[in-house]
């Protein structure tokens, strides 16, 4: 098995050659991928916000941000800078401790979930065996933060928004987990690396989206609902609830909510790409192409090309899905809260269960195609 580039091994070995003990050299390595991933997520967030503004503008036949940087591409950074310098207001009758902890609890799980995002065979912070389950477990912490900030604001709109957000997350977590379970069953593993591995080899034809079309749709709907994106942005429906749980927040605390929601959208799009669209795999299998060209797998140039193609492919698929989400935002009207819960419990949940059963049956009857 070609393991691609092993940056960690090379880095640690080079430090050991300098005379450092192995434990210390590993200690030097550990923060690097984490910092890199946080920076990557933040840059991805800035790009995402810029895209959201530009595509929204295009959908409404406006120009959108134009002056800050070329094509307004620095607009998101400028916004962030503005939010840093804004006054941090805690309402007089709010519960200041919970009011402060709330946004932190919302943003932390999102960033920790990037632990299991793979960009290549070895381009992942930690290939924990739990993989995708860790993401599901961590994303279940978020509603507590939302409830906390909704309650602490001492504002009825905030409380309603927080309650709605929690109800929404709980009800859509179940179809989401069931859709993931069907994929996990096919790949016999919860590790994100193994899930992508199982889809590799046949290019675009091997991707899970062909074997799990229903699961793909369920997952996408549930992921949008988890991110509180339109058409499911009820917790902050501005016509009904002012801004939901964010109503009383300003400055950096508001920015934490804003960052969390966009980074979460990015994460969900990456997860759709990993689970259903073959992760870092290209539509045409690169290693076969290299085989036809007569290149050995150990060719260093080929490895660098494969790794960069992997990152590019993951980002391309992710932003394609993000584009879809933004278009949906300007195409679909918002659903009502009862429609939302009906859709989650009475439609998505039974369909996800049937999908799981059918997948299990197919896995037994057609083991060559469904991961036997």
């Amino acid at each position: 098995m070609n393991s691609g580039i092993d940056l960690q091994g090379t880095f640690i070995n080079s430090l050991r050659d300098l005379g450092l003990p192995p434990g210390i050299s590993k200690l030097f390595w550990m923060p690097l991928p984490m910092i890199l991933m946080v920076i990557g997520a933040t840059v991805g967030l800035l790009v995402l916000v810029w895209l959201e503004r530009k595509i929204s503008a295009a959908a409404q036949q406006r120009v959108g941000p134009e002056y800050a940087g070329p094509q307004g591409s620095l607009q998101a950074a400028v916004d962030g800078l503005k939010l840093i310098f804004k006054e941090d207001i805690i309402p007089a009758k709010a519960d200041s401790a919970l009011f402060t902890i709330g946004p932190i609890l919302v943003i932390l799980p999102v960033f920790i979930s990037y632990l299991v995002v793979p960009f290549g065979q070895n381009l992942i912070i930690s290939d924990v065996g739990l993989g995708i389950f860790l993401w599901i477990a961590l994303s279940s912490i978020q509603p507590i933060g939302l409830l906390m900030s909704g309650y602490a604001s001492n504002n009825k709109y905030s409380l309603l928004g927080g309650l709605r957000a929690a109800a929404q997350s709980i009800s859509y977590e179940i179809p989401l987990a069931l859709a993931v379970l069907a994929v996990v069953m096919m790949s016999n593993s919860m590790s994100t690396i193994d899930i992508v591995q199982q889809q590799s080899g046949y290019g675009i034809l091997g991707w899970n989206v062909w074997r799990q079309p229903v699961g793909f749709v369920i997952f996408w709907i549930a992921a949008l609902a988890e991110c509180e994106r339109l058409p499911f942005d009820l917790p902050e429906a501005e016509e009904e609830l002012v801004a939901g749980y964010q109503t009383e927040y300003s400055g950096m605390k508001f920015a934490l909510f804003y960052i969390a929601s966009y980074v979460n959208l990015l994460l969900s799009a990456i997860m759709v790409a990993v689970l259903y669209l073959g992760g870092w795999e290209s539509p045409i299998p690169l290693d076969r192409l290299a085989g036809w060209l007569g290149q050995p797998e150990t060719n260093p140039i080929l490895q660098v090309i494969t790794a960069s193609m992997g990152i590019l492919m993951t980002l391309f698929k992710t932003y394609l899905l993000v584009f879809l989400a933004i278009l949906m935002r300007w195409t679909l009207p918002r659903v009502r809260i009862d429609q939302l819960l009906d859709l989650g419990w009475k439609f998505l949940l039974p369909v996800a269960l049937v999908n799981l059963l059918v997948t299990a049956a197919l896995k037994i009857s057609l083991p060559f195609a469904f991961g036997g």
Partner: protein
Amino acid sequence: MNLAEGVQLVSFIILTVMMLGAALAVVLTPNIVYSAFLLGAVFSAMAGLYLLLNASFVAAAQILVYVGAINVLILFAIMLVNKREDFAPVKYAWTRKIVTAAVCGGLFLLLGTTIITTPWAIDSTAAAGDEAIYILGEHFFTDFLLPFELVSVLLLMALIGAIVLARRDIIPDGDALGDDLKLPEKPRELVSAVASSESESN
């Protein structure tokens, strides 16, 4: 002691302090909302301890089930029924607190001595780690099949019971039950009945 052991020891101390502190605070804070949030902290610290014991699946399940579902439901219940009521101070309330403290302390001592005196058979085989999922699945479908199915039936019964309680049209309305069994709630709005009949006629 190498680096990994040091990290483990420090995390163990932090988690234990966090868990004990939060657990005491759950019981001692007068504000029930704080108690509910601190309960979440206790559950998270417990998940951290599982992680230190190399049981990552159990840790994640702990977060998912206890923090993500049960604690959120408790919070939901508290926030939907949050009746701010000033309780009339009871005379000799402190005696009740002392009695409670004595009972709890006695229980703690009893359990503590039981744990210390029992000769535990400590399993020396290595922790399963990531293989734990397969082992758990095997147990669920072999020797733990009956308990597993019984639990699922129990959960189903609880689910149906909750639905029956929540749907007032199944239970006969107030007067037949007598005042003791009635839930304290706002009088039901008559507007909704009118609105629904209007929408039917439309």
